[in-house]
Structure formats: structure tokens, C-alpha cells
């Protein structure tokens, strides 16, 4: 994370797929799970996404993010299990609070969808260098400025984490306790927020000067250091993805 990106450098078949195919995959995979309410199909899509993470050797990197989304998932289960409009079959009770089967089943579907979304983005972000992704888009005609904004968005979290590390060091070096039990950590988290945000804003100024003097706003035709053709199977993968999406749309319309 010190490196300012979530990208995990590994040699894998998923890493070798071109960034745009992976971007398309995220879209198709998320779209399918939202178009179909069929639990086995959605589970199937999730299983496929997890398989990609496994092939990309980054499955364990996605676990902390899944951990974070558990809070959201838990609240979905509670709310849906309790309040779903079609509730009729009481599945079990927590104390005197009934949890309904219909609600739970819907909650399970939502959970699968959220998990799939997190994992699909994981496939893209963990196995793709952010600059490769952005460069592919710029080559397709996206403006370099928008590309840079997108790149910054992709880096916001890792950079915040890096900044947090630095500021934590600065704070504990001067006597603020950040190591220890949960309560110490929580207590030390609040005073971190303002400096992390301020630091990011100040960095932005430095960053924009750095970009200016390296000709970022140049109007001349850009060139690219890396050639594109080191990614394999891009075309085939895109066709397959598009076909699956078309099949699902057809299924929704005709069946």
C-alpha cells in the first residue's frame, strides 16, 4: 500500500488479460446479477468471479474488503429479514423478533449481488495496473485529463492509507498512543482524519505543479511508452462477455 495502489504484482493469466476486457467484465458481471433474481445463477456468477480472483492469485487480498462490506451485508439481512413486504413464513426468532423466510431469501440475493460487485471490482483493481487501465481508455479516445481524474479516484483509498501511515508515524513519534487494544486504536483514529484530508489537499497543489512542468497540458499529439499488444485474448474475451450479456437480456425479455 506504500506504493499508492491496490495493484498486486503477480504473474497470472488474469493479470495478462487486457484492462478494457476486465472493465467490461465488471460491467457485465454486475449487470447480470442485477437483471436476474435467480439465486443459483447469481451464485454461479459469484463463483466465477471468485474463480478469477483465485486464478489471479489475489483472493486473499480481497478478503479485507469483503470483511468491511460485511457490516452492510449484516444490516441488509436484518432489515430485509424483518421488514420484507412479502413476509409470511417465520423462519426463526431472535428473542421475540421474528425473521421471515421470504425476506431472508431476498436478503441472500442482495448479499450475493453485493459480494459479486466487490469481487468483480477486485478482479479489475487488484490485477490491473491503474496506469495501464487509464492508458487503454486514453488510447480509445478518452481525454487525458479525465483519465488522470479517474486514476486519482482509483488511488484515493490507497493514498489515504499511505498518508494515514505517515501521519500515524508522525503522531506516535510525538507521544500519541496508536498501538494497543481496540479502544486505543479507535481513539487515535479521530485525530487522524483532519490531517489526512488536509494533507491530501496540500499534496494536490504539489501534484498539479509536478504535472504542469512535465507537459501534462501539452497540446501536441501524445505518444505512449508501452505498446498495447502484450495482452492476449482481448478480442475473444470481449465477444464472450458481450454474448453472455446479450443472452441474459434475451432471457429476461423472452422467458
Amino acid at each position, binding site marked *: 500500500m506504500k506504493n499508492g495502489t491496490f495493484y498486486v504484482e503477480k504473474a497470472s493469466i488474469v493479470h495478462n488479460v487486457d484492462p478494457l476486457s476486465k472493465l467490461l467484465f465488471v460491467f457485465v458481471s454486475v449487470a447480470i446479477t442485477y437483471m436476474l433474481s435467480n439465486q443459483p445463477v447469481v451464485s454461479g456468477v459469484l463463483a466465477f468471479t471468485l474463480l478469477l480472483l483465485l486464478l489471479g492469485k489475489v483472493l486473499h487480498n480481497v478478503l479485507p474488503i469483503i470483511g468491511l462490506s460485511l457490516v452492510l451485508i449484516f444490516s441488509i439481512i436484518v432489515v430485509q429479514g424483518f421488514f420484507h413486504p412479502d413476509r409470511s413464513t417465520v423462519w426463526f426468532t431472535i428473542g421475540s423478533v421474528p425473521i421471515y423466510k421470504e425476506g431472508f431469501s431476498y436478503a441472500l440475493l442482495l448479499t450475493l449481488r453485493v459480494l459479486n460487485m466487490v469481487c468483480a471490482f477486485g478482479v479489475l483493481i487488484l490485477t490491473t495496473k491503474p496506469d495501464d487501465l487509464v492508458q487503454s481508455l486514453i488510447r480509445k479516445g478518452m481525454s487525458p485529463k479525465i483519465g488522470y481524474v479517474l486514476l486519482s479516484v482509483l488511488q484515493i483509498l490507497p493514498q489515504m492509507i499511505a498518508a494515514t501511515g505517515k501521519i500515524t508515524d508522525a503522531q506516535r513519534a510525538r507521544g500519541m498512543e496508536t498501538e494497543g487494544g481496540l479502544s486505543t486504536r479507535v481513539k487515535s483514529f479521530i485525530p487522524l482524519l483532519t490531517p489526512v484530508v488536509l494533507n491530501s489537499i496540500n499534496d494536490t497543489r504539489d501534484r498539479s505543479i509536478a504535472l504542469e*512542468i512535465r507537459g501534462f497540458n501539452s497540446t501536441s499529439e*501524445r505518444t505512449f511508452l508501452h*505498446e498495447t499488444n502484450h495482452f492476449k485474448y482481448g478480442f475473444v474475451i470481449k465477444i464472450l462477455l458481450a454474448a453472455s450479456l446479450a443472452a441474459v437480456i434475451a432471457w429476461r425479455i423472452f422467458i
Partner: protein
Amino acid sequence: MKSIRVEQLKYKYPGSDHFVLDDISFAVEKGEFIGIAGENGAGKTTLCYALSGLVPHFFKGGYGGNVFIGDMEVYTHAMSELTARVGLVFENPFSQMTGAKFTVYDEIAFGLENLGVPRGEMHRRIQECMKQLKIEELGDVNPFSLSGGQLQRVAIASVMAMKPDILILDEPTSQLDPQGAEEVFQVVEQLSAQGVTIIMAEQKIEKLAAYSDRIFLMNQGKLIHKGTPAEIFSRDDLDVYGIAPPVYTSAARSLKFRQDPTANLPVVLEEMPTSGLEKFSLPTRHVEVVDVKTAEIVVSDLCFGYEKDAEIIKGIDLELSGKPLAIIGQNGAGKTTFVKLLKALLKPHKGKITVVGVKTTDTTAAKLAAAIGLIFQNPNDQIFKSKVIDEVMFGPLNIGQSPETAEANALKMLDRVGLASKKYENPYDLSLAERKLIAVASILAMDTKVIIFDEPTIGQDAKGKVKLAAIINELYAQGKLVVCILHDMDFVAETFERTVILGDGRVLFHGETRAAFGQEELLRDAGLEQPHITQLAHRMGYPGILLRKSELH
């Protein structure tokens, strides 16, 4: 046509009412090497900005006069047109990375891609620049994981690769070890010989004197004097402008070389005689040296690495107490990592460190904070409050000083570093040198038993260095243990009696500074060199090691 032409340039930053650049006029020929000398706040960095177009295009504010780059007027041309002609290397290399690229190779390519340089040419230029700056093996490394010195080389390479007609460098060697700095000067000199116009602001006066065709002496926004190094540094009033002449010039003055008072003095080593000090003997010290008892740090068999199988510290044994100690060594030798271990910010893989009787593995950095203070190398990593006084009070409050005491201590230390008048300002609006001093004040205010400085002289001018030396001596007199990482060999020789030479994660030497600078071969292997005064005395036939200007009588 002149390469650069500046006519009556005046500039003030937005919201400020004094001119940072005040009626500046000069012209520079193609391929000239211009050195800019002046104390901090003289306007050197702002002049660099004005020549590269950042003033007035990025920094607005009050702007008057004309700046021409070749036939292009800076004011009427956009930054994008200017960057193809003028390259600027920042003072702080940490701020020069674009963040858009994740390897050194790609980072250097960034500017070339924007300029539309063809791919083959791009690879050729990048490889050439990496070779010249000796960073070939860093191509696949992420810039954000580099040390300060390595990053500075990358920053220079990334601008050099754009092949500007004019290269502007703002203290480009501040983070480099002595040999690294010399290499950068040589590379820049080659460029100048190839017709690239060089403008370089620098505090390393001896180097500036040796390499510049002309020196611009600046003070309070004004261009005081343009002339050859000999003309500028032979002036009798340099201290008025806050700069010290090269060691050779002041030695020539004190040895009364000048018969004709209007003649210029020598400014480089080669102009000095090769004899005269054969019978010289070191003055016996009149000053009673009192040994003060200080806190103690004991390091035994210390090993550490950030990644598995990549040890950076490879078995260090040291006992630190007593007189202030300088740690010197090549960029990437593990100096910063070593002091972070002392501070318990990192935990050893093997071996142990005892700070004032406490093992660092048995405690936390926060609990140790009242005993040991560390001033970070990059002040941007240390400063996080938006008001100077809050920043300086943060540590004292955390270690249990009452708000009144903390404020009193903070004000006292701000006064000590000379920044009391800036107590309500935002540290981010101050210069690098000032931020560095704020970082110093914020640690001193905690009144710890041990104080570690990581390259305190970065960005400091002659006055700033004198101030730092005085602070270090005061701290020792108060019974504190002072440890200081340095790349400035002259400062080490003037200020420290004990020195540790680190190389590749090991202690290569620990002992008297005079003995350290006698180890010529060891110094060469460790990327270091002798202080200028030592080299001078050696040239003039003195068989021993001379360390201080005051020793030359």
C-alpha cells in the same frame, strides 16, 4: 539571440504586499551555466518559477516586467508551450513525482509521452538519462518506495529526458551524498557544454564556484551582483547577504594571500598553492572541554529489513552516549532506517536496542516519545497541523506538559529557530527550510533526553547552519544525547567530534571525526569525501587532517 532575457521583473505572491522579485534584469547566453547564490528568502526559488512559467501561470499575484525564453514571452505563452523549452527540477524531489506512474522508468517517460516523443526515441532517452544519473537498476521500482537521494536522481532524470533548451535546478543535490552531488554537477556541466543553458540555485558554494560561468547574487528579491565566481566571492560584504564564501576564498583571506586589495581571491581548490602548510601544527585547544554525561542508547546485533530476505540493517553494534554524534554514509546505506529503529517506529528482526534503559521491543513509540525525539528528513512527513503553534505544541501536550508549559516551551523553541513571528501561519505556506526548522522546534519543545536529526541542513543557508550548530552544542551542554544524520561533510567537521560511517547496513567506522576523515579509502567506498578544508590543507602540504576554519591560523 539570448537564451533568457529578463527585463525589470517584479513579482509578489497573492495576498502578500512585498515584492519577492524586485526589479530584476539580466540576460543569459545559450549554454551558459549560471549559479544563483543567496540566503533563504532571497527569491531564488521564485526566480526559478518565473523562468519556468509557473509564475505567473500557476502562481498568480502581482506581475510586471518581461521574461523571454528565446523569442517566447513567458507571460503570453501557455505552460504547455514553455515546458517543451524549459525544464525545472524542484527543491523537494518528493513533490516532483506525478503519481500517475508506478515505476521509475514510466515516471521518467511521463513527460516524454506528453510531448509526443516517438517510442524508440523515448526508450533511448530514458536509458541514457538513467545511466548518467546511475539509477539503471531502479527502473522497475516504485518511485514512492525510494530513499530521498534516489528520488532526487529520478526527479533530475525525468526533467533531463525532456531535453529542454534551458534547465533550471533548485537545490538539486540537497539530498545527495557528496559523491552523488559531484556526479550530478558533472552531468549538468556536460549538458551545458552541449549547449543547454543552466540556471542552478544552490547552497553548496564550493561547487557553485567550481562549475558556474557566472554567479547571480540575490538578496531580498533584488539581483545584487552578476559576475564571475571570483568577482562575487571576493566581495568583502558577503555576510551581509547571508552567504559564506567558498572555504578556499576565506582561507586565502585569512592566510593573507591578497597583496592588491582590489584583486580577486581564489575560489576553487585548483587555484590554491600546493605548499605552505608543511610545517603547520594544529592549535592546542584553549577551551576547557567538559565531558557532559548524557543519556545512553545501546544497540546490539541489530538486523532489519522492510521485506523478507532484503535486510537493510545487517548487524549493528553501537553504544551511543556523550558528545554529539554524526552519522554519515551513502544514499540508501540505511541511515534513516537505523534512526527509525532507535525511535521504535520500526521493530528489529534480530538484536536489541535499549534507549535510556528501556528495550524498544518492550514499549511503544508513543511511550518512548518523552525520552527520544526524531526530526524527520522530509518535514512534509512530520507536519500535519494547519497552524505552526499547534504543530509545535502537539508533542509537548501528548507527553503530559500542561497547556501553559507546552505553549511556553513551543514559543521558546520557535524563537530559538527564529520563526516566532510565523506562529499563526500555516506551515504549508512556508518554505522548505522553514518547515524543516518548525519540525526541529516541535521536537525540541518536548525536552527529550535524546534528540535525533535526520539531515537537518537540507535547504538551510549559511545562517541556518550556524543556528543548527549552536542548537546542537546547547543540547549537549544540557546533558542531552544528540545524533545527527548528515550529507554535509563541512558541517560534520565543524560541529561534531564523533562520527559513525554507515555503509550497506553496517558500521564501517566509529570514532573521532578527525580519524574518520583520515580514512580516505573508506570514505571513497562509502560515497563520501573529505571536508573542503581538509582537502585544502592536504593540497597545501599539511600531513594531518584539518577540520575547522578556526584551526587555520
